């Protein structure tokens, strides 16, 4: 079995997967911080919205979310190209999990830090942005790393809405060549390599943040 036969054909599709993954992660990161901070310190109405968002997207199936956006949005008069629909679904879904990570990390900063900030007359907002959030960043990164890998693996679902990602392309080539083991084997290896790259990048980021916040010297 020679895996390299299918490699060139699959790499282009892998780039599509990676692009969807990156864009949805950018969106997820903004949503994570937005909703996570809202859950931690927002006014009641904003907390309620963030809570509803997080629970709806964590409590329902990603595939159904994807189909819903793909089939239901056009009925509401909003029609997005499949690519954007995929990014949107993944970003919303991962962002919901990320928001819980952010909220948990913010809560893990000790009450004593809040008191020290109050004694120095920082406002609530200053305490959040200058004292609490920077300290909680290190706590978030390991969980973000697994969410990012999960997000990469979940991109395979976009093949269901006609996007020619790695999974879609692998299926297509397999149908043509019937070389099931080699095609899917190659696809697995590519996913694995991409996941390892994400993990490595997040490790570097973790070290950077740890160093710039006094956790490592």
């Amino acid at each position, binding site marked *: 079995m020679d895996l390299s036969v299918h490699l060139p054909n699959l790499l282009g599709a892998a780039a599509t997967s990676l692009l969807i993954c990156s864009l949805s992660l950018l969106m997820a990161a903004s949503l994570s911080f937005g909703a996570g901070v809202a859950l931690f310190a927002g006014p009641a109405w904003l907390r309620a919205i963030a809570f509803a968002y997080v629970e709806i997207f964590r409590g329902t199936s990603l595939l159904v979310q994807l189909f819903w956006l793909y089939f239901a949005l056009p009925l509401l008069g909003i029609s997005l190209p499949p690519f954007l629909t995929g990014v949107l679904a993944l970003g919303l879904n991962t962002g919901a999990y990320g928001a819980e990570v952010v909220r948990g990390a913010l809560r893990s900063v000790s009450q004593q830090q809040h008191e020290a900030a*109050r*004694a120095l007359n920082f406002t609530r907002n200053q305490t959040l942005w200058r004292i609490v959030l920077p*300290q909680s960043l290190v706590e978030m990164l390991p969980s973000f790393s697994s969410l990012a890998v999960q997000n990469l693996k979940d991109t395979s679902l976009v093949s269901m809405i006609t996007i020619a990602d790695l999974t879609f392309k692998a299926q297509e080539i397999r149908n043509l060549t019937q070389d099931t083991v080699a095609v899917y084997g190659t696809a697995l290896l590519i996913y694995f390599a991409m996941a390892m790259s994400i993990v490595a990048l997040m490790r570097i980021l973790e070290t950077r943040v740890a160093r710039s916040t006094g956790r490592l010297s």
Partner: protein
Amino acid sequence: MSASIEFNQLHKRYGAHPVLRDFDLKVQAGETVTLIGPSGSGKSTVLRILMTLEPFQEGCLTLDGISYHQPHGKPPFFASDVHLHKVRAKVGMVFQSFNLFPHMTVLRNLVEAPTAVLGLSRDEAEGRAVELLHMVGLSDKAKAYPGQLSGGQQQRVAIARALAMRPQVLLFDEPTSALDPELVGEVLSVIRSLAHEHDLTMLMVTHEMRFAREISDRVCFFEGGRIVEQGKPDQIFNAPEQERTKRFLSSVLNG
């Protein structure tokens, strides 16, 4: 410029558990007052109320002429942010466990609040921070992170950080209780140098009896949420009048 403090008939409960009852305490501007007493008697609570970290249920607290009043019989209401901001601008606090910001260098710990809260320029704040670090003997640690310092060094940074805000009142809650015995001296000597400053009112809770005796203008013996006896250090330590004071002092001095 320093500020006076007056607690008037203050009540403080945690849930149904009363901690302070009819609590009265007056501290003159520039005075150094020490609270001693058994643990659980409410000493920290007094400091925490002054620092606005805890609300109270009844009575009146006056700081430098600004009163915060809790009307009798009314449920506790909370001071406005404006009021709290004004009070906190006058009061600083040094905590038992230092509570430095671990993600900032020592210098940044001293510069952050003066720039963000007081609106000082970066240069001005850094200049002042450098002076304060020199005063507490830590000029060489400006670039270190708190986690790289000993407990005694961290507490000296914490004192400098509080002073950087130019408080009129400085509160110390057992500043040396979390320290190894050999590190206590360096922190006490910094506090000692402050006690002689006339423009700083100091209120301190400590178990270092010899130190309390040395630096205080007045010592208050605290038990069960009220001051049992107070007076000049010599009077309290040499000739306590109350039986409970005698018992406490003999237990800590001989214990």
